[in-house]
């Protein structure tokens, strides 16, 4: 197995856990944690050619870059069911801001002062220490249409990836 295949395998395994968490009565942070991890592995898979013997380069912007690149990919657009290229472009563009925020959930980006689904942080204004499990992440509202779209897009891209 090369690095590309290994990233994909791990992303698919994490996606399975993510789907199980949707039905589980657990704090929302866990779903977000898995969403962030799946997007990271999916993007890393696409940053490595099939059969690659080298890992993906370390980058914190892979998911957003990946979405920007796939805007121009006719095979992905077709497989996702978008007949019109400009509609697909608008669809992806509408999700870039949210994609960047999902990328920002990784602990190394969030640091000790920003909400993230994995480690506690300290609010820089109130100085209250917050545990992810006790925080509802209003900026990632599960009912937000963009969250619903990106959730579906990630699942579809994983299904299509080879």
């Amino acid at each position, binding site marked *: 197995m090369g690095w590309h295949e290994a990233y994909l395998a791990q992303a698919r395994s994490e996606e399975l856990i993510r789907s199980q968490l949707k039905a589980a009565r657990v704090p929302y942070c866990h779903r977000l944690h898995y969403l962030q991890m799946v997007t990271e592995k999916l993007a890393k898979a696409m940053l490595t050619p099939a059969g690659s013997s080298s890992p993906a380069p*370390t980058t914190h912007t892979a998911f957003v870059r990946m979405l920007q690149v796939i805007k*121009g990919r006719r095979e992905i657009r077709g497989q996702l069911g978008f007949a019109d290229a400009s509609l697909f472009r608008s669809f992806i563009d509408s999700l870039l801001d949210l994609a960047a925020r999902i990328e920002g959930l990784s602990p190394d980006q969030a640091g000790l002062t920003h909400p993230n689904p994995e480690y506690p942080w300290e609010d820089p204004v109130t100085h209250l220490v917050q545990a992810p499990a006790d925080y509802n992440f209003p900026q990632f509202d599960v009912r937000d249409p963009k969250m619903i779209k990106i959730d579906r897009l990630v699942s579809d891209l994983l299904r299509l990836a080879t």
Partner: protein
Amino acid sequence: MPVQPLNPLIHNQALSLAEDNRRAQPDITRIFWFPDDQEVRLVELTEQIPVTTEGEALPFYFRAAPQYDLPAPSAIALIRPQEFGHLRLPSGWGDWSDAIEL
């Protein structure tokens, strides 16, 4: 040094992908092709991309999709215009002087 003939299949797909990508992302200002006999390799310049902090161009790789008239695998990197010529290129892509503007 003799000039290597360009693979017309790869060249045509590079042109076709460049056209697709310009249409999909109108803020792309320039597109450069790094000729290879097996794979389409493009670097596209746009301001609408995060600054590359890794010191290297980061291409995304796509398999061939003949049913979409993409018979060869391809790799596409988006970089900011000021990064052209300064980032490391992926192994095997040659150097920046090998780039052909499309």
